[in-house]
């Protein structure tokens, strides 16, 4: 099997990784924001519930969560989820939990004085959040979000455990069929390039937000 064919085959697999990556980001960021609101809520039962859920999600392996989401509905409710759909659900829930903690940290780090300054200027709570606090939160969470998002693209290969046809599974199949081992190692290049691009992107965002301090 020549280099070009392998490159093409792996690229097809990596398409699945990228799709999973994009869908997770798209849904986990808003869900994470909702969860962070829950874990900062003044309603005690809601806060305890949310924080317990976050503890469970962050306290168990993503690989296990993938299996739970895929196999449990089939075992108990005879609902057969599509493999890729199950992967998306597990990833969104898992990453939303992590994002929510980053958001919570970012929001809680904003000095009380910023809110009070808004209040005495007659601003509404929503105006203070969107016009004053939000950009400061974004600036504070750029670095940890960059970390998390770089981890996400690599984590997508975990979907292999429920046989989503992502790149690592593709590579393993090639290795098994053709008795060559290099395609497995070659997958690293794809991740490296992708993470390199992400790193540049986040460096750019940080630079964009560098015009002020505080």
């Amino acid at each position, binding site marked *: 099997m020549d280099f070009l064919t392998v490159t093409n085959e792996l690229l097809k697999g990596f398409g699945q990784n990228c799709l999973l990556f994009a869908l997770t980001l798209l849904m986990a960021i808003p869900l994470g924001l909702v969860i962070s609101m829950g874990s900062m809520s003044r309603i005690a039962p809601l806060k305890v519930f949310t924080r317990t859920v976050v503890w469970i999600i962050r306290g168990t392996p993503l690989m296990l969560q993938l299996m739970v989401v895929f196999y449990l509905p089939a075992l108990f409710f005879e609902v057969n989820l599509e493999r890729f759909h199950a992967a998306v659900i597990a990833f969104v829930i898992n990453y939303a939990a992590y994002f929510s903690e980053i958001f919570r940290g970012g929001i809680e780090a904003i*000095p009380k*004085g910023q809110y*009070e*300054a808004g*209040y*005495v*200027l*007659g601003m509404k709570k929503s*105006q203070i959040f969107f016009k004053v606090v939000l950009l400061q939160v974004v600036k504070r969470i750029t670095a940890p979000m960059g970390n998390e998002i770089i981890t996400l693209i690599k984590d997508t290969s975990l979907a292999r455990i429920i046989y989503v046809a992502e790149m690592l599974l593709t590579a393993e199949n090639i290795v098994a069929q053709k008795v060559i081992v290099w395609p497995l190692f070659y997958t690293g290049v794809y991740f490296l390039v992708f993470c390199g691009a992400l790193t540049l992107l986040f460096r750019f965002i940080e630079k964009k937000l560098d015009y002020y301090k*505080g």
Partner: protein
Amino acid sequence: MALLEVKNIKKHFGKTEVLKDISFSLDKGEVLAIIGSSGSGKTTLLRCINFLETPQAGVIAVGDEVLFDGSDPAKKKDKEIRKNRLHFGMVFQQFNLFPQYTVYENLILAPKLLAKEKLKAGETYMGESSYRAAVDKIKEEAEQLLEKVGLTEKRDEYPCNLSGGQQQRVAIARALALNPDVLCFDEPTSALDPELTGEVLNVIKGLKSSDSTMIVVTHEISFARDVADKVIFMADGVIEEEGTPQQVIENPQSPRTQAFLSRFNRFSD
């Protein structure tokens, strides 16, 4: 008739009584200085007047409009409080400028939001009934305020590039941009290096000559003596002594006021 009337304000945090029955009044154009040691309740009083804290009891009135009445729950609604806050301006010890906005943007942000809201509700803003005209007026006034606090050339700087004294002057201009009836200062120079306090105090002095009504919580006794029309000395949540600067600062009657001021009087001329 007094512009500001504060009656029987009581505030406690848990079991700690911070304000025990505070009453005072202030006429238009008067400057009130509140002095006293840390923990005497000065800042809490100012925060109650700005509705950043809710007193358990008491009345706050501006002109003939009652803004707060501890016995009337309708006065504690968010919307009501937000409207009432506009009678007051507040300058904080830590400035609290919005770091992502330039000096000029800090000044016009809140007035623009308010103008939009008022015009949407069918009211006017500064006599203007179109948003564009209102914004023009807001911008014009912002430029005038910058000139007033001597920061026209810092108009497009971000707060992080300003000295503490300059930041506090921006904060004063920002508070004035909403034309409050009473401007409150919470220890406006306590976070500043000694050589920077002068420029801020001079701006406040300048406001006095333009007839602003002000409440200044301060540790600058000589400033209180020179600028205030009225001085209140607070201790343990009560007004221990009140009167003109001559009465309270130069000739205090209460032993506690005397003790507090003894250090100052010993060093001053």
